[in-house]
């Protein structure tokens, strides 16, 4: 009885020993993986910080302005003038009703082969 118990215990302890070693090695593996990852993260954070700084530089008005000035002619841009601002209030209101009679007359004229625009162009000597 005792003998078989001992044998059992020996086997169990060997198995547990093997288990502990396995865990130890796997933890060592995980730890080195972790170190590598931490390193990678800090590396990437460093790169990210540089990229963010780059992005911040590229967004500065002080960086964009000279570029625009350099390409002013090709782009055809100039600083906006006061006269170029408008508001919705300045737009004329839509006519209360479309002028149906005039439209009908226009379509009728075109159907009959008379183009009022043509007449104007001819009058101006264009064509």
């Amino acid at each position, binding site marked *: 009885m005792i003998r078989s118990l001992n044998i059992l215990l020996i086997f169990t302890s060997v198995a547990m020993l093997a288990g502990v070693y396995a865990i130890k090695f796997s933890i060592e593996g995980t730890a080195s993986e972790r170190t590598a990852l931490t390193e990678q993260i800090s590396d990437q954070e460093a790169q990210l910080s540089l990229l*963010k*700084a780059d992005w*911040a530089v590229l967004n*500065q*008005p*002080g960086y964009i302005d000279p570029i625009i000035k350099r390409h002013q002619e090709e782009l055809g841009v100039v600083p906006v003038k006061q006269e170029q601002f408008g508001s919705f209030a300045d737009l004329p209101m839509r006519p209360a009703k479309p002028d149906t009679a005039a439209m009908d007359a226009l379509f009728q004229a075109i159907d009959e082969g008379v183009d009022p625009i043509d007449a104007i162009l001819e009058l101006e000597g264009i064509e």
Partner: protein
Amino acid sequence: MMAVTAEPLAQPIALDGTRKQRGNLTRARIRWMVLAVVLGFAVVGGRLVQLGMVVQDDTIEGQTRDAITASRPPILDRNGLEMAVDIRVPSLYAEPRRIIDVNEAVRKLRTVLPELDEKWLKDRLTGDQGFVWVQRELTPAIQDAVMRLGIPGIDFITESKRFYPGMSEASHILGSTNVDNQGIAGIERHMDRESVALLQNLGLARGNALTPVELSVDMRVQHIMHEQLVDAMTRYQAIAAAGAMMDIYTGEIIGLVSIPDFNPNEPASALVKDTFNRITSGIFEPGSTFKTVTIAGALDAGTASMSDTFDARYGVRFGRYTIDDFHGKHRILSLPEVYKYSSNIGTIRIMQTMGKEAFRAFLTRMHFDKRMEFELPEMRVPTVPKEFSEVSAATASFGHGLSVSPLHLLAAYAAFTNGGNYIEPTLYKRDVADAEKLYERVIQPQTSMAIRSLMRLNALEGSGSQMDKEALGYRVGGKTGTAEKVINGRYSNNKNTNFFASAFPLDNPRYAMVIVVDEPQPENAQSGETAGWNAGMVTGRIVQRVAPMLGIAPDFSEALDEQIVPQAIR
């Protein structure tokens, strides 16, 4: 049996059974085993305690490793654009006790870093130290090159470094940091005093987790101001130019520029002479811009009104001195005319209606005689006489004989135009509700209305007309100030400090601005050298560019000006 009993006191032969014998042996073995196990556990336990007691040696040249990677919160402008960020940069260090051949290491290192002095480097790398810096804050490219040299005992560590993407544009606001990432000037220094230093000491300020600090500055406005003031330096061959803009309701500083400036990415450039912040730490005689203060004081005290007239026919005599007007009209002027023609005589008469004591008290009420509570550490105390004599009160009424910083002037103009509430300027974001708690009533709302009219009137018909041409439609109004500089104790007649203090859009004012141009020359033969021609025009050009950014639409209607400046005072 007899034989057995006859044995004289012989030791009894104890005969244990084999089972008992083995049992005893086992007990002894168990005892030894227990002892061995206990000893084993004691060893393991002792080792654990020992491991627990180990203090990790993380000292690097007197600093902890945490401190050198200590980071600072990013600084953002009011729209979220980065004004200062941390970047991680490699720093080169050496472990001299691990270096095998110093001469070889020096020779190899100098192929990549030729600017290092050979003798210095040799001394640095010789010895038995565990850690010395070689060169801090290098670029990743140099790091690669040095790593490729493969010198034992030479390695890199990543440090946090402050980087200012706006370069010199917001230099005086931001200040700078030293190599250990501690603020040494500007808002960086202020942040350290507040909280960052504490966080760094606790080792908490690491990584990117810090909440960004939001400033009140608008980088677009800052850029335009910077550009225009740099332009003014060459256009008017000035020795310095400065400007600041403020939200009159919240006290937020929208832009603050002082030229010459420095590049905060190279802290050494801040040490060059004349790069001090003229808005906060420069004090100047404010000249005629101070007439607004005098008139506001008298109007508020009720001793003068908009319809009063003042005799400006003859200069005002004080003993041997006579104070006269620069563009003299030499007639009787109404109060708006005194302002419009910037009459010294008229202003003295207006001041005299309230008396010198009341005038002096009004300057205290407008915070002109104390150091401004402001985030930037570079501040100067204004010099305003404790008590005025008749003459000094007279000269003070048109801005001579006292010196204040442009920031003082800006805060006063903000109070004059916002309805009469003094609000201390700030560089941090603040909303109107928070600002209202800090309001301090200094003049009545109706006085503020009158000052608005006068300022706009001056832009329409007075010395601000050059400015108004540049910023047509944005309802800017303001007052010029051309103050003769004191050279060797006398007022010079060809060296001036020129000011333009303004507010816009005056139908519903939102922003106040002060522009200073120091010692300007006329731009060309047709232009003058008074403030309207330089500081005024700079103001106009800045407003013309920034008003659309700030959401102010131009409006050319006459009716609006009629409403700001009633016909009665024209």
